């Protein structure tokens, strides 16, 4: 599916940048692993979906965005985006655990992280539901004549929902500055791509609407970063939508409650995908190019693991909400009728 790894080449980034990218990906991975741990401990409940395996997509794309200016929106697999955009990881972790220090004071949970200060628009549970909403965020940018670019991530499964096509049409019709970034990880829950999509090259779906569309490799952070920079600038410059299908892979179950991966993919397939692990790949590239030693990278791993440990401890120290908070925020200006 994804393009084969390129032959070793001069790395386009400075050693500092490479280390920074590596560190970001490793941080996401440890963060998500800790979330899995917390889920198994019963500290996170409900539905929880990790970004493990997909780190290069988020990290590479985020590099192209202007922090605090550009907009990002995604579905329920939503821990990584805010973490990359400058959100407070303690507040993200606390939200997944339903604590008062979370971004939504425990009302949203893992699937519903929002950080408007950093222009992360969430965090949505209904497959396809956020795509018109993301399009609306781009609409505002155009309306206000602000050169903000909106990145709207969606899954390969979500790409089939009717509102997605409606959104493509209106975004193209009205020249909205939005990037539909389809994260094609080849599965919609337990359904393989070829069982849910009549044509599995999802990027082609932008073409009938006159949207510039392409497919890129999402397992190579350097490639994603380069492609994203080009695409984001094109959208900012031309004030039109863009569709990019990013080929990646999730290494874990659909969510923490999915323990039946063998129902939709084989061990061999997973092992093959592990060879494309974006973190391992960057590590190899860096070591080969002499940008870092294995020891340097191990040190980063340890540091990030420790950092996540501290975040977890702090989040876990945050109290559960008080029952009286249940009526807060239903309205901006009133309280609904109370009581059973």
């Amino acid at each position: 599916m994804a393009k084969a790894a390129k032959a070793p080449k001069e790395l386009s980034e400075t050693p500092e940048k490479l280390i920074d990218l590596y560190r970001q990906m490793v941080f996401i991975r440890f963060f998500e692993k800790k979330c899995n741990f917390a889920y198994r401990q019963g500290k996170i409940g409900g539905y929880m979906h990790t970004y493990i395996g997909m780190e290069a997509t988020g990290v590479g794309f985020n590099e192209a965005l202007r922090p605090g200016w550009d907009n990002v929106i995604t579905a329920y697999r939503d821990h990584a985006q805010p973490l990359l955009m400058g959100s407070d990881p303690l507040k993200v972790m606390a939200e997944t655990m339903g604590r008062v220090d979370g971004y939504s004071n425990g009302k949203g949970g893992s699937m519903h992280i929002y950080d408007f200060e950093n222009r992360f628009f969430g965090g949505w549970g209904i497959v396809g539901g956020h795509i018109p909403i993301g399009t609306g965020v781009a609409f505002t940018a155009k309306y206000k004549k602000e050169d903000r670019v909106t990145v709207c991530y969606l899954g390969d499964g979500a790409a089939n929902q009717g509102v997605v096509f409606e959104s493509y049409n209106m975004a193209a019709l009205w020249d909205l500055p939005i990037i539909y970034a389809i994260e094609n990880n080849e599965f919609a829950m337990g359904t393989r791509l070829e069982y849910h999509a009549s044509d599995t090259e999802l990027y082609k779906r932008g073409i009938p609407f006159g949207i510039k569309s392409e497919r890129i490799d999402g397992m190579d952070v350097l490639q994603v970063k380069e492609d994203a920079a080009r695409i984001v600038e094109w959208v900012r410059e031309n004030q039109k939508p863009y569709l990019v299908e990013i080929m990646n892979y999730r290494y874990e179950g659909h969510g923490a409650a999915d323990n039946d991966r063998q129902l939709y993919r084989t061990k061999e397939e997973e092992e093959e995908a592990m060879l494309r692990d974006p973190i391992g790949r960057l590590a190899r590239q860096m070591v080969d190019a002499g940008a870092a030693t294995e020891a340097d990278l191990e040190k980063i791993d340890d540091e990030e693991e420790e950092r996540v440990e501290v975040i977890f401890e702090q989040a876990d120290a945050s109290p559960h909400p008080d029952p009286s908070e249940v009526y807060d925020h239903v309205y901006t200006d009133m309280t609904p009728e109370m009581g059973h």
Partner: protein
Amino acid sequence: MGVELTYRDAVAKAIVDEMNRDDSVYIMGEDIGRYQGTFRVTQGMFDDYGPKRVIDTPITEAGFTGIAIGSAMSGLRPIVEMMTMSFSILALDQILNHAAKVHYMTGGQASVPMVIRGPGGAAKQLSAQHSHSLEGWFAHCPGLKVVAPSTPECAYGLFKTSVRDDNPVIFTENPGLYTVKGELPDDDDFTVPIGKARIAREGTDMSLVCYSRMVHVCLEAAERLAEQGISAEVVDVRSLLPLDMETISASVAKTNRAVVVYEDWKFGGFGGEIASRIGEECFDDLDAPVLRVGGLNVPTPYSRVLELECIPSADSVLAAVERLS
């Protein structure tokens, strides 16, 4: 004596029995085939019936529900699984604006014999977008039938009737019920008619009127009330539309008091319909105002502490009963 089954297996058995009985019955939905169903209701069916009759759909609720409706209008009897009933909101136009209108708009020329089923109501910490109780919303719409069984036996019997019914039937399964066990009668022809309530526990001092998982909440409340010397009757409505007022009224005539218990938002919910019908039809029998116990009027929060505040429990029923006397 019959076999003991979980609620999940009772629904599954009813699906299979109906598929065996009638070739025109098929089931479609997300992840129901190769993945065996998110709540495992359709486990094994893909292997047994193949992709023609156990159909994995893309995540396009409006589209596949519409396809099911079209196929029902033209000779088939589809069962549509909503992975959760919250996702039926995406198909609401097809259900309310199309399926429910067909028989009437066509002057009786066409009908829509289909069942839309799936887990409805709050599970555990699934948050605001995945926890809706929509049965009352559907029951607001003429042209649909709506059932909400609480036991494996009722689920099995009502499901078979729903498939055989020539109208669109909404069949809601509270996710908290799937592991509830119960016995099925030893009779392969056993069915439960749509529109018949049942007395889940007899009592004399008050009627707790409820459906779906709230039946179990009310049974627990009745047990605790019994310890206080209060005898509560539990009326399991089972079918919201049509509603069996006869059974409900007979119970209230005996007990002279009623509390209606439902998981949906209290304000404007289906329990309000039952309460006002009791008020209209049993006025002379009532010794106290009819009370409602419903879900808190807030989007379901993620935090377990807050979520538990929202869903009616035996404690909330007891608190209401206190207000009765």
